[in-house]
């Protein structure tokens, strides 16, 4: 395969494929496997622009103006069909939010927590305690200490929240579960 330079973050496996009608689109990013992480992940550096410079426009190729999404990989213009306005408003304001989804056992609707708004585990547990319905245990209201909060790390293991220093953990946490 010829050298392909593209601008994308390591691990974005999107093969650059201009769509021809009926052809399958490139599959979405998948999680990096261990060997990719350790091994020779090529870093694409080049964003393939529309190849109209070549002059061939008689084909049935659909030429999409490319745009980058937040993580730098290619997307179709206007797909999925979500309004620009809605996309903007999902940014939780202009600062970069570090939102994490939390589910509690027995509660159907999950909550979203912005880790950037908390400076310690205590603060996080206090928030979680407020967000979820209080469990009645022997007649007394439970406090934050009653909950066991776990998160799923990169290897898919469930770890107890609190082991790792707060600053480090903010970067890593993707998914939490409270019991």
């Amino acid at each position: 395969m010829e050298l392909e330079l593209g601008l994308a973050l390591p691990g974005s496996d999107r093969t650059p494929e201009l769509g021809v009608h009926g052809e399958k689109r490139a599959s979405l990013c998948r999680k990096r496997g261990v060997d990719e992480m350790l091994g020779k992940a090529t870093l694409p550096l080049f964003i393939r622009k529309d190849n109209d410079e070549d002059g061939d426009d008689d084909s049935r190729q659909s030429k999409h103006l490319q745009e980058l999404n937040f993580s730098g990989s290619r997307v179709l213009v206007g797909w999925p069909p979500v309004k620009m306005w809605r996309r903007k408003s999902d940014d939780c304001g202009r600062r970069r939010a570090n939102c994490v989804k939390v589910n509690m056992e027995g509660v159907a609707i999950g909550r979203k927590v912005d880790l950037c708004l908390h400076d310690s585990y205590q603060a996080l547990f206090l928030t979680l305690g407020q967000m979820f319905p209080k469990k009645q245990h022997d007649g007394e209201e439970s406090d934050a200490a009653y909950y066991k909060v776990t998160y799923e790390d990169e290897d898919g293991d469930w770890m107890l929240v609190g082991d790792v220093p707060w600053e480090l953990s903010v970067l890593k946490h993707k998914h939490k579960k409270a019991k």
Partner: protein
Amino acid sequence: MVGGFRWAAMFPDEVWEHVFSFLPADADRNAAALVCRAWYRIEQRSRWRVFVGNCYAVEPAAAVRRFPEVRAAAIKGKPHFADFNLVPSDWGGGAEAWVEAMAEGWPHLEELRLKRMVVSDDCLELIARCFKNFKVLSLVSCEGFSTAGLAAIAANCRNLRELNLHENEVEDNCLHWMSHFPESFTSLVTLNIACLEGEVNVYVLERLIGRCPNLKTLRLNHSVPIQRLVGLLHRAPQLVDLGTGKFAAQHHPELFSTLESAIAGCKNLKSLSGFWEAGPTYLPAIYSVMDLIEDDGLIAVAASCKLLQELRVFPSDPYGAAQPISLTEHGLVAISAGCPMLHSVLYFCRQMTNSALLTVAKNCPNFTCFRLCIMEPHTPDYITRQPLDAGFSAIVESCKHLRRLSLSGLLTDLVFKSIGASANCLEMLSVAFAGDGDAGLHYILSGCKNLRKLEIRDCPFGDQPLLDNAAKLETMRSLWMSSCSVTLGACRQLARKMPLLNVEVINERKRGLPLELQPDNCPVEKLYIYRTVAGPRSDTPSCVWILR
């Protein structure tokens, strides 16, 4: 039948006006206007509400002449796909021509509703100055104005009842625009400023709300903190509809219970929207936004929200990798089974099956709007690996009142055959990455007798179905096709054959020969065809050609 019998003379004009006031639809009034000259004149004088679905379908001055007594006007500009950046930003849809004509011909205008138009501050100032009895301003998905324009509205529209700003791009250059509402101003019933990105002076807002006893709808933006929201609610216990901005309840979770009791104080509250962590469940919320819902959440909604009429589920991370979110066809099926009043659905997901769609179709024959977006194009039924033709066919065959449909997933021409044959009430159809060839488009254009708007992207539809169904296009409001297989030659033919259509070819690349000199087989990137009695418009940007 003796000639010369004058129907109109049977009753005085006022009686006929009163009779016409019972005609619910403009189409009925149009029919009445054709009966005789007297009825035409009477109906013309008594029509006070007009809807212009495409701002370029008629000259503003002609509309004003045709119905000189209009009090309420609604006008739409850009094609729907402008919402998804498919339409060049300078395409058009400017409101000036309309506002100027209306200022001249409809000085008694009370209500103006604009959607997807470019509205300048000058327009807003003109509205504020010229319409003495102006009551309702509704701007949806518009752009081009700033809070300075809103200040003019606030300062001058003494009888304003409704200021509805929904999903507009508004420049924030006048922080204190709300202070321009005079102290004597008390008429507000609806205030929706959710789309404003700037800070709002909460003191000013409090005083405004406090002196407007008829305020029913209040939708705020992010800048009102929870503590102040409580104060606002105490001043407006008569509220029926409350929307909060996208603030994070986790900032001050201890205040949340204070807010809940403030809301409880609004005894008439029927609708709640915003970024809620746990909405009060004692409110029969007709429309509420929940954050981060999955199948389990939808199952819970299905079990408890028996009055649910409309459901919209958006992707939390539309451009990210497929993350382990469990929002699948099961959530949709649960909702369809549990909510008998459901008639409108917008659902984004990553997987679907024909079987699920068949179940939904059976559970919900009353759908009027069904929009399903499977995020990855060409996705088949994930269990059978078949196209989703059967599923969507079931929807159109079961839902006899379906007016709006959006397709997605792997689809062949077969689904279009079903739609063309069964979707008799369908008015708007959105198609993306679907079909095998020309037959698909032909089925739609030769069927769907009530079709008004058709928008297509990335489908292998070419010239033949357009040329074969040219007459159909004149019965529709508009057709959008982008990244399909239409050639310039077909567009030229269509334009020649159909003088009442504007055939707009949009070519943003600007390289090579100008469009007039391109050969017939040149592919057309984007095509927008709409019926019009105004002829070609004069405000086209350089990337748009109107073929004649």
